[in-house]
């Protein structure tokens, strides 16, 4: 363990991971729409990225020297919004405008007003190309410092566009590009091995010219180490992918490894229980769903007919 060599203290990261999970569930519950599974599985990755690894400045979201982040699995928007809000990019209370008309927190991450969001997504498979373009652009501007991070889903790697991007990033030796695969083994409707097998995943990336590190995507220390390694230790000249082994729905018991919680909003009472359990699991003071009883009115379109 080389924990003491890296940045943020473990208790900060754990707190942030906890709060990313909490806030994600708050958003999804309040808006009655969203993707808990893939938000929860990515919470630790995002905590480490935003509170330890990435150089960003909430006061200057467009600062040239910042590290870039592209969320290719754009449905994990709640977790990204939570991380950004916690990092200070916008007021935390704004998370309750998630999916509201006129708000800045679209259902899928979207470049358009919300500070900290670099690119627009929604269709899976397109983000790594954008990240590749950014990495190429940084090199062309002779900005050696900033790196581009791209979060991918495991099911997403069915998309050919991912492999087109992977091939080109290796061709251009983009060692300022780091992909993280949230390898939670679950897609929208089932397990990867049932729906579309992607193993041997590490071999695929290697054969496409990438360096590969496999990590426990819920070990904050492990993630820190991996990112640290990629920064200072590993040889250069190739893009790197972190295959982060995760659990879909991590932290909410009934959602874990359960495709039914890929996209599903809990009712407020269920959310309340879930959040209490989550707090207990983190050894935090028990805290339920903050907006219990404050939900929107039901959809009315065609409602009466």
């Amino acid at each position, binding site marked *: 363990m080389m924990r003491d060599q890296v940045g943020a203290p473990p208790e900060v990261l754990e707190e942030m991971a906890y709060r990313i999970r909490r806030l994600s569930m708050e958003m999804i519950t309040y*808006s*009655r*729409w*969203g993707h808990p599974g893939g938000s929860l599985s990515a919470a630790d990755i995002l905590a480490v990225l935003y509170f330890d690894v990435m150089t960003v400045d909430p006061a200057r979201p467009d600062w040239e020297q910042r590290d870039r982040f592209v969320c290719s699995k*754009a449905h994990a928007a709640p977790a990204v919004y939570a991380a950004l809000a916690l990092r200070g990019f916008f007021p935390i209370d704004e998370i309750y405008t*998630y*999916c*509201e*008309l*006129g*708000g800045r*927190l*679209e*259902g*899928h991450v*979207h470049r358009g007003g919300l500070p900290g969001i670099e690119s*627009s*997504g*929604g*269709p*899976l*498979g397109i983000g790594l190309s954008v990240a590749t373009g950014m990495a190429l652009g940084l090199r062309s501007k002779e900005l050696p410092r900033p790196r581009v991070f791209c979060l991918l889903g495991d*099911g*997403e790697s*069915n*998309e*050919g566009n991912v492999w087109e991007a992977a091939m080109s990033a290796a061709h251009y030796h983009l060692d300022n590009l780091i992909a993280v695969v949230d390898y939670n083994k679950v*897609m*929208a*409707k089932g397990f990867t091995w*049932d*729906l*579309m097998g992607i193993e041997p995943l590490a071999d695929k990336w290697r054969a496409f010219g990438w360096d590969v590190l496999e990590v426990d995507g819920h070990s904050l220390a492990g993630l820190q180490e991996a990112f640290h390694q990629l920064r200072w230790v590993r040889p250069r000249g190739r893009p790197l992918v972190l295959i982060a082994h995760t659990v879909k729905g991590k932290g909410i018991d009934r959602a874990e490894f359960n495709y039914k919680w890929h*996209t599903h909003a809990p009712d407020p009472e269920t959310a309340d229980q879930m959040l209490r359990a989550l707090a207990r699991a983190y050894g935090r003071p028990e805290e339920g769903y903050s907006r219990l009883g404050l939900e*929107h009115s039901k*959809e*009315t*379109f*065609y409602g009466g*007919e």
Partner: protein
Amino acid sequence: MAGSDAAPELEMREAFGRALVELGQREPRIRVLDADLCTSTKASLFRDAYPGRFVQLGIAEQNLFGVAAGLALEGFIPFPCTFASFAARRGLDQIAISICYAGLNVKIPGSYPGLPTSRAGASHNCLEDLAVMRTLPGLRIADPGDNADLLAIMQAAVATPGPVYFRVTRLTLPPLPRTALGFQWGKGVILRPGKDVTLFGTGMMTSLCLRAADLLAADSVQAEVVHLASVKPIDRELILESAGRTRCAVTAENGTVLGGFGSAVIEVLADRLPVPVRRIGVQDRWIESGGIDELFTLHGMQPSDIAAAAQDVMRARAGQK
């Protein structure tokens, strides 16, 4: 109407899943292909009924449509299922060349078209499928107005050789008044006769046109409501006949007004019988996340908007004379 026994109170996607199962029983060549959306599209009902005839292809829409082409070449009738967005935008080349250009017998359902797709936002609200698909020669296109319509369209799709694209709304739609016609390619139907203005609707917008006609009736305007579920081929004769009587029209579609259904109607009219037409639909802007009702309001697609457009176009006609 064929399929008039379809339970109207179901979400249309549920009716779709059941219709797949029903058709699958009668037609053993049917195969249902999925791109990791089956419990959303309800193709999962077919999977549960005939697991051996269901093909899961993961999140890879280009391959979805290519594999469908291959299965059609082997004599099957594939239904490659995904959201309308991912068909019209991600799989377009494969739909165009592997399926349509080759003239293959593939039936493409486009699920979650238009506005009412939950709060997913612009990338999932497919506004352009009708316009995009219309450009492909040989592809038949339909947008059902209710569940009975959907069932009839799916029956017609299976009965007609060649490629078909049809929309499957997620919502529960109110049943349209039944007519003797049922669904036929290139045929529309007058759901409510009127003499003052024609409201041409397709898909779920037809029922909003009927509600607009009620609003107009309260203002003593007799609006004719024409339902054109068959977007391509479109019913030229009926369009010309109805607009020939009313001399002005409103079109209503659940999608962009650029190049889609409304444009198909005015293409017919401009050729032979130019009359003023207002096109209801999304006016060339990206959709935001939001509630369904408020989105319809924001985009001016509520019955009151259709009625206002009708009043407006009648004034334009009067100005012309």
